[in-house]
């Protein structure tokens, strides 16, 4: 049996706090022992809208960080953009509200056994899982640089505490309202050319992930990216969340991003086929 989702379960968690941070909500949930099974890259599937909701599908959110020790026991942090009805509902839940969730789901970022030079690239709320990851990498002796990008400063999520685990933190905004003006992907080619990075971990919009994959192509840099496709079930039973992914022989098939992802090897994703299907079956 596939080990995926082996440790996942459903629970009712209580909202410990809900704070606005820029254009996002930082939501802390009391989840108890569950945190022991959560790894950076995993996500949570949340039931939205309350008891009588017309919304029938769960919403996926990356687990930003977990903490075992805290005033409330094990807790999990999410960074949520109020986007549509479901995420807006979640952002409106006050302290003490109960949240129906299933976690931890999906693959996690691979952690190198050797200390490597890691570059973490986040777009928008995509930075959420990177701070937890940075901590793990730091503890393994890695050098951790983090580059965050967004269209505007309000969409950069970079909490104070998170910066501790990071050697360098650079911020890019397209409108120049925070950090440097430009795209977060722009400085990467030089870094690679200068041999300053071994592994790139990325999380953010699909075009950003694709751009990074194209930049590292041909180099020795490994690229682990957390993808985002529309998900109906989040647990592997509906086949809605597929992406074209190549196997070792280069044969492309449609893989479920909820159980074969969200963390995937960027080199294996057939980015040009996303939103299409391979012409013929291998």
């Amino acid at each position, binding site marked *: 049996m596939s080990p995926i989702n082996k440790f996942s379960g459903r629970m009712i968690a209580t909202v410990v706090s809900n704070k606005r941070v820029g254009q996002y909500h930082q939501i802390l949930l009391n989840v108890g022992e569950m945190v022991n099974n959560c790894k950076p890259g995993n996500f949570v599937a949340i039931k939205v809208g309350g008891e009588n909701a017309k919304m029938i599908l769960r919403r996926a959110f990356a687990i930003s960080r977990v903490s075992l020790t805290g005033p409330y026991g094990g807790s999990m942090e999410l960074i949520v953009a109020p986007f549509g009805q479901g995420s807006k509902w979640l952002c409106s839940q006050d302290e003490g509200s109960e949240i129906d969730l299933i976690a931890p789901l999906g693959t996690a970022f691979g952690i190198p056994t050797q200390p490597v030079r890691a570059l973490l690239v986040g777009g928008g709320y995509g930075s959420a899982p990177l701070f937890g990851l940075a901590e793990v990498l730091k503890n393994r002796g890695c050098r951790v640089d983090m580059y965050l990008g967004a269209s505007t400063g309000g969409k950069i999520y970079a909490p104070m505490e998170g910066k501790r685990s990071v050697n360098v933190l650079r911020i890019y905004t397209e409108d120049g309202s925070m950090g440097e003006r430009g795209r977060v992907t722009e400085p990467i080619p030089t870094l690679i050319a200068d041999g300053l990075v071994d592994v790139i971990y990325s999380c953010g919009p699909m075009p950003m992930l694709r751009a990074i994959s194209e930049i590292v192509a041909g180099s020795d840099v490994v690229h682990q990216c957390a993808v985002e496709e529309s998900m*109906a079930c989040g647990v592997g039973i509906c086949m809605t969340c597929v992406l074209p992914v190549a196997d070792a022989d280069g044969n492309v098939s449609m893989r479920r991003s909820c159980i074969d992802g969200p963390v995937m090897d960027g080199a294996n994703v057939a980015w040009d086929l996303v939103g299409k299907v391979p012409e013929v079956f291998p």
Partner: protein
Amino acid sequence: MIDLSTTLGNAWFPSPLFTASGCASSGKELAQFIDLREIGAVVTKSVMSKPRHGRPTPRIAETPSGMINSIGLQGPGIDQFLAQDLPWLVSQKARVIVSIAGETVEEYATLARKVRSAPGISALEVNISCPNVENRGLVFACDPDASRRVIDGVRKTLGGELPIIAKLSPDVTDLVSIAKGVVDAGADGLALINTVLSMVINLETMRPHLGAKTGGLSGPAIRPIAVRAIYQVHEALPTVPILGMGGVATGRDALELILAGAKGVSVGTASFGDPAAIISIQNELKELLKVREFTSVAQAVGYAHRPVEDIDTRHEQ
């Protein structure tokens, strides 16, 4: 004690709750959340003769109390299914209803031939809501003649052992006549209903949201359509067992379909919202039957059809 067992043709199941085809993948993923032996049977994703990539993404859009999907029967093909997925289910002691789908009458027969020799299958569900490539892509289930020919071909190939359940589409003018046709052609039971052809337009791109443009509507939104379909067909063909489905999310919903005439109930979309939904539905159903003083599921099947004058004779049965 309530007897939850049910039959579809000559196949016996300990519970009337089944997964819905395409909503439990091959069973493995769901097994992380429920014990597959506790439910009636796993109905597998419709399998075709060759492996398929399915349709382009996005493949799903949520709608009020429902969703539309256009998976397009992505799957490994029958050979890999029989070599890997089926043996796994059998090893788990799950009861299995295999769902097959084809693009030609011939493909269905080929699939039936392959399934025939596989051990551990309780019944065959024949999903005829597929485009018929030999007739301008017209869906088999929307064409009385083509539906009949598919079932006839499957029946002849399969022999008499395995019950055949023909899965029909609600997108037709005269469901009852399609149902009669496939029963005449050899179907032992009917699965009602498949999804309802639908579309969502994305207001940002201002184009159809799904990669495939149209998709099938499922979930609680369509439950009243499913209940009507089951009621109508049970009224016309009271002896033909019906596997009902469409928007079942609670024990109340399952009982509604059973009262309308379903001997079994498949749970599809509700499993996406809660992978253990089928187990809660089963428990709730048991409770509801008890409160209504039924001692078995069988007593409740089609109970909504009893004449108004009828005195309640359940206890004497």
